[in-house]
């Protein structure tokens, strides 16, 4: 089979990407490209992670901001309590995100469609309220953070964060790609198309849903963790901002969720447009563009960009010819 060839091509691509990112941090002097690029990379990680549950399994998670905020505040709390290094912050955020995913999965095990979506918003608001009342991490007013010294070979913290986020993107994509081609992915797609039929044919739907919640949650929280150091500041209403949810959802659906490349394309396209717009016009307008693009794609191009580019994905994803 050509599976081995695909694998080699994929990992070669990953290696080229990481080397290019690393080389860029060493060569380019100006910090701005990294500042903007970090946000785009963060959106790629979020969109890919979101699509594991929202795309493959068809469970629309509105609670991306819950996982993101939990990632941010795990990093903040750890940093404040022990001064833990960035890697530890991210790993801890991933673990906490996975636990939260497990809890959310258990709580919403029997909920479908809109009930699941509303429940995830509820989880986000409740956690945000707790963080707002948590004095140790600054409460509603937020908390200032002092970045520690940067590690070699990087000459600025933002460049290092850019590289770290690139690695998180690679991890998210690799996990999504693995799931897509594995039994888990096929099981998730089966339960997405018809949960009852899947259950009847022996697909362990509840277990798969839990696993998808946990993996998706861990990846989102991990992608959120460096945001505290990136902004040198954290406050509940921006860490738990609903715009993370709409971005992750919109970028995934606009890119197309039948293949991991969809969310990546969606995030690159919309992320760069957003960066351009918020520099040239205003941040409100980029949310407007995001919303309009989402509605247009959902109405007019249900399989997203990849559906427009390669009609054969329609067959794979929808189940209907």
């Amino acid at each position: 089979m050509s599976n081995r060839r695909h694998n080699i091509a994929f990992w070669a691509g990953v290696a080229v990407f990481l080397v290019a990112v690393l080389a860029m941090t060493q060569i380019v002097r100006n910090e701005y490209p990294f500042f903007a690029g970090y946000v785009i990379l963060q959106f790629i990680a979020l969109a890919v992670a979101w699509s594991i549950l929202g795309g493959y399994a068809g469970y629309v998670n509105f609670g991306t901001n819950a996982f993101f905020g939990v990632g941010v505040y795990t990093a903040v709390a750890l940093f404040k309590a022990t001064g833990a290094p960035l890697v530890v912050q991210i790993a801890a955020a991933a673990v906490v995100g996975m636990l939260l995913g497990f809890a959310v999965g258990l709580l919403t095990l029997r909920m479908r469609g809109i009930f699941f979506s509303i429940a995830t918003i509820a989880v986000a608001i409740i956690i945000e309220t707790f963080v707002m009342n948590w004095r140790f991490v600054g409460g509603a007013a937020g908390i200032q953070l002092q970045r520690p010294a940067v590690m070699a070979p990087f000459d600025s913290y933002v460049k290092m964060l850019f590289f770290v986020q690139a690695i998180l993107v690679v991890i998210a994509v690799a996990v999504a790609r693995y799931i897509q081609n594995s039994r888990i992915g096929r099981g998730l797609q089966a339960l997405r198309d018809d949960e009852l039929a899947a259950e009847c044919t022996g697909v362990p739907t509840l277990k798969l849903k839990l696993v998808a919640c946990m993996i998706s949650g861990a990846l989102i929280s991990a992608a959120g963790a460096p945001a505290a150091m990136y902004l040198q500041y954290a406050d509940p209403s921006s860490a738990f901002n609903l715009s993370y949810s709409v971005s992750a959802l919109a970028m995934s659906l606009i890119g197309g969720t039948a293949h991991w490349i969809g969310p990546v394309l969606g995030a690159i396209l919309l992320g760069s447009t957003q960066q351009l717009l918020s520099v040239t016009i205003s941040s409100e307008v980029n949310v407007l563009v995001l919303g309009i693009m989402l509605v247009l794609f959902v109405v007019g191009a249900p399989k997203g960009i990849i559906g427009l580019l390669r009609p054969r994905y329609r067959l794979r994803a929808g189940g209907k010819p």
Partner: protein
Amino acid sequence: MFSMDLLLGAVVLGVLLGCFYAAVSVGLSISFGLLDVPHVAHPAFLVLASYGVYQLNETYDIDPLLAGLAITPLFFLFGLLAYRVYYETFEKRGTDAGVRGIAFFFGIAFIIEVLIILQFGVDQRSVTATYIGKAWRFGEYRIPIRQLVAFAVALALTILLAVYLSKTFMGRAIRAVAQDEEALRLMGANPVRIKQFAFGIATAVLGIAGALLIIVAPVEPTLDRAYIGRTFCVVVMAGLGSISGTLIAAIILGVAESIVLTLFGASWAPAISFAMLLVVLAVRPQGLFGR
């Protein structure tokens, strides 16, 4: 600290608040409860109505309630259009409508939010009327008249809608379409037209509800996020489609919020409706008066 008087005051205010919550949720009880439309944009429509009322009140100095009544036909048409788009793009095509339908309304909600910000800015807006700013005093209690006005109008609106749905021909047709669409089709009725009309009614009610929202307190563009929790909590707790249940569930929510506000302070209030919603979804998803 804790006192009976304080608690009693909280309960009274909670009941007033609850009836107001019923009025802002009753539209969702039709669109989501009866018609199964995943209408996440309902609270955004509500806030949009409030801004419409604000604009009329600001430029022509019209009483907010009259202004609400004036935009009602507009919202009716808006509802007809919204349902038509939803039906043509999702319901009619069938498969995969779930994910995309939810995303569609989520996108619409965000578009409305941003358009309001672009037009009116992020500052809070409020209306002026003779009954706003005054209060009735009974001994140590103090009840703002704006709360009483909102309470009375909300109660009337909810009861009117309940009567409409149970007594009139069209109201019964709407409930019939919720129960068995196929049967209606076999009897020669057009279920899509009935559903479209029902969605129009559900949206039209928001004209008045939006007026109440801005009478009770100033509004801001992102206020709809808090009301996602409140409206869905009320509708799900009531049991989908039950209008009388909506009133009772809304009062339960109002009293709970009011008590928590009194005992623990305002910073915990936003989580109450969402927490109750989660508990209801997890423990009794069919609601208190589920069909």
